[in-house]
């Protein structure tokens, strides 16, 4: 299982209710239901992946976060997870708002556009960056709203969203992001993983 999922699952307490938004083929959901005795639901946009999840007996519904989060009542989940999809939404702002409405706690991971390789690509080559976590060309990328870890911190500050925990992930190395090391972590992290609360 991906390092990212291990970090996420550590955030989650036993016997809680979890919604995995953009659950893919349900690997994290399976892990959580097997290891954390949680009640886990998924939302996924790709029919193929939804079918895979359902084939595994997982409670996944086909839909997208921008239209289908509406149907979940306020605070109906202990945790809502959004793994590496925030940047693909038309309105990440609305999605985050909705996640915080539905979940008591929200776990968001973002591919960090502030990573030094990304910065170098643009600085030296003068080209839009293409990296392991961001493998697309500018003309076919689904990522509409890229941001850096710093941007995400700023966003949460402005929106008065409480960042409970923030983790940097770089080549499987896990470390805490704090206000004092933020500038540095923003340079070396491939992924940022955040535990949020309204």
């Amino acid at each position, binding site marked *: 299982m991906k390092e990212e999922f291990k970090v996420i699952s550590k955030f989650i307490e036993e016997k809680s209710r979890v919604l995995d938004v953009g659950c893919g083929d349900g690997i994290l959901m399976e892990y959580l239901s097997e290891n954390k005795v949680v009640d886990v639901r998924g939302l996924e946009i790709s*029919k193929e992946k939804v079918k895979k999840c*359902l084939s595994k007996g997982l409670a996944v*519904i086909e839909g997208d976060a921008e239209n289908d989060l509406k149907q979940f*009542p306020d605070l109906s989940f202990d945790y809502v997870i959004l793994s590496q999809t925030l940047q693909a939404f038309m309105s990440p702002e609305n999605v985050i708002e909705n996640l915080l409405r539905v979940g008591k706690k929200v776990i968001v991971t973002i591919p960090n556009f502030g990573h030094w390789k990304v910065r170098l690509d643009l600085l030296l080559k003068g080209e839009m960056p293409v990296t392991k976590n961001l493998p697309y060309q500018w003309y076919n990328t689904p990522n509409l709203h890229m941001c850096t870890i710093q941007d995400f911190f700023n966003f949460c500050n402005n929106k008065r969203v409480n960042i409970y925990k923030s983790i940097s992930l770089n080549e499987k190395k896990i470390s805490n992001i704090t206000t004092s090391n933020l500038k540095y972590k923003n340079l070396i992290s491939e992924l940022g993983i955040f535990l949020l609360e309204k």
Partner: protein
Amino acid sequence: MSDLNKIKNIIIEKTLKLDCGKEISNFPLAYETYGNLNEKKDNAILIFHALTGDQYASGINPITKKEGWWNYAVGPGKSFDTDKFFVICANVIGGCMGSYGPGTIDPLTNKPTGTNFPVITINDMVNAQYNLLDYLKIEKLFAVAGGSMGGMQVLQFVSNFPNKARVALPIACTASHSAQNIAFNELGRQAIMSDSNWKEGLYDQKSTNPDKGLAVARMAAHITYLSKKGLQEKFGRNLQERSDLKFGFDADFQIESYLRYQGSVFVDRFDANSYLYITRAMDYFDLTKQFGGNLSKAFKDTKTKFFIISFTSDWLYPTSENKDIVIALNAIGADVGFVEIETDKGHDSFLLDVPDFLSTIKNYLNTTYSNINERRI
């Protein structure tokens, strides 16, 4: 008569109070089973049929000698794997395959009950079938499943008998029959009732049935089960065994010939009055209204796992209506899965060979069944 003797049935002695206010008792309910009930009695699946279905979901229907209506899905190694599960299917009351319906001979008059049969509802159908579980001594079903009107019965069943089934699979259905669907059903009923053989429903079944009316009803309905794209691809403007138009009203086009054929074979196996009663039951179905406009209340405190399926080209029970059920279930935190299967085969998709659909159900049921046994759920 020998064929009719092959129909299994139970006589329900207990009085059933119908939604119309009338009471029925000592009436037959015909059913069929496939596979074996295991020792733990935890592998039973109750399947509900659609408008023109019957209890013969799989194998060869002993009456019509044709394949069971859900042969693609029910059988050894199939979606509802009868090597593993014990599948039960009953003919709905109002039907014409052995259960109490308008074709049942009234012992007082020695004639078919006809329109003296009470108007029934989906709720009545489900309540009648519940008796079968008592008879088969099944405490808890593993699953209830059905498409179209079968799906409506699934919803009504889990609402009436919460936690009687671990899994519910309502397919290509709705919680509230739409105006468009009522309109199509009315068209079919008017076709039957305007056939001079119908005689206010008191026709003598054996000789002069309102076959023409029933055939037209079936033709009209059949169009609604297919998609425009599916029809275009299958028939286009192809001509029927002729090289040019004949400038008459014969079936010039293949699609005309196909519909006429569908109408003509239907009248051999279905009773016109049953068609009236069952379409009426569908029209009256409004689970949302039964619960004061809040569909979620129909499933309050449910522990059943729901898996809802719709089809992209189904315009009769479109994805939006299936999704309304998903939304109602999510609103109460129920365990619900949902997928819209991509296909050009229209509403009929649930009856056809749609591999994605069939394999997803199979895997879902098998995994869920073993998860339950491992007590992970």
